[in-house]
């Protein structure tokens, strides 16, 4: 797999993960809502580039504070994951930019 299509896939999965995290944060007060997540590494290794094939998992066991209404979302964890996702997305965008600037360099015969 060449660099560009790998990065394209990584960006697709990151963008999808952003949606998952956003819906978790939106449902932080919804009784009975189960936190959704995806396995990023497994999705990258899966062949094909279709976000509809991404497997979304649910966290069933609440880990403490929201346990009363069976909501399994931890707001702080989701915010940190969202930030992390954002950072990685930025990094990949920058990598794509570098790749293109190298191509441009070659096209301009090194000028």
């Amino acid at each position, binding site marked *: 797999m060449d660099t560009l299509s790998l990065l394209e896939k990584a960006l697709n999965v990151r963008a999808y993960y952003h949606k998952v995290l956003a819906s978790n944060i939106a449902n932080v007060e919804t009784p009975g809502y189960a936190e959704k997540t995806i396995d990023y590494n497994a999705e990258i290794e899966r062949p094909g580039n279709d976000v509809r094939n991404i497997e979304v998992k649910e966290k069933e066991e609440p880990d*403490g*504070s929201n346990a009363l209404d069976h909501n399994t979302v931890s707001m*702080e964890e989701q915010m*940190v994951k969202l930030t992390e996702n954002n950072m990685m997305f930025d990094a990949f965008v920058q990598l794509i930019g570098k790749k293109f600037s190298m191509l441009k360099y070659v096209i301009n015969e090194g000028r």
Partner: protein
Amino acid sequence: MGILDVMKIGASGLTAERARMEAVSSNLANVHTTRTDEGGPYRKKDIVFIPTDVSGDGSFGSMLNEKFEGVKVDEVVESDKPFQQTYDPSHPDADANGYVTYPNVNVMEEMGDMIAATRAYEANVNVVNSAKDMFLKTLDIGK
């Protein structure tokens, strides 16, 4: 130990301090609660923390990092400090001598705990933000 693990540890600290804040709010709300399902007045709730492994994938990298741990709530315990006795014969829950047993919650102590939890939460937010800034700085290498 990547910068992303630092952020995970920060997140565990945030969740733990939030739980502590919830205990404080419960204690303050019930400072005059004289009846509970178990009988007797409300008992002050205390949060007990233990360290926890945040990476949790069992990889070689995580074995190297086992010295750095996040935090989680181990249990919520009920304080067995003595209840406060106040003379108030008109209170429905007063005993034969006119004394009411109020919860073992000390408002000053709870306020102090609340401030400590708030500051610890802020510190963890700073950890997460600093880690983020460090990561973004690495993207500037070679610019």
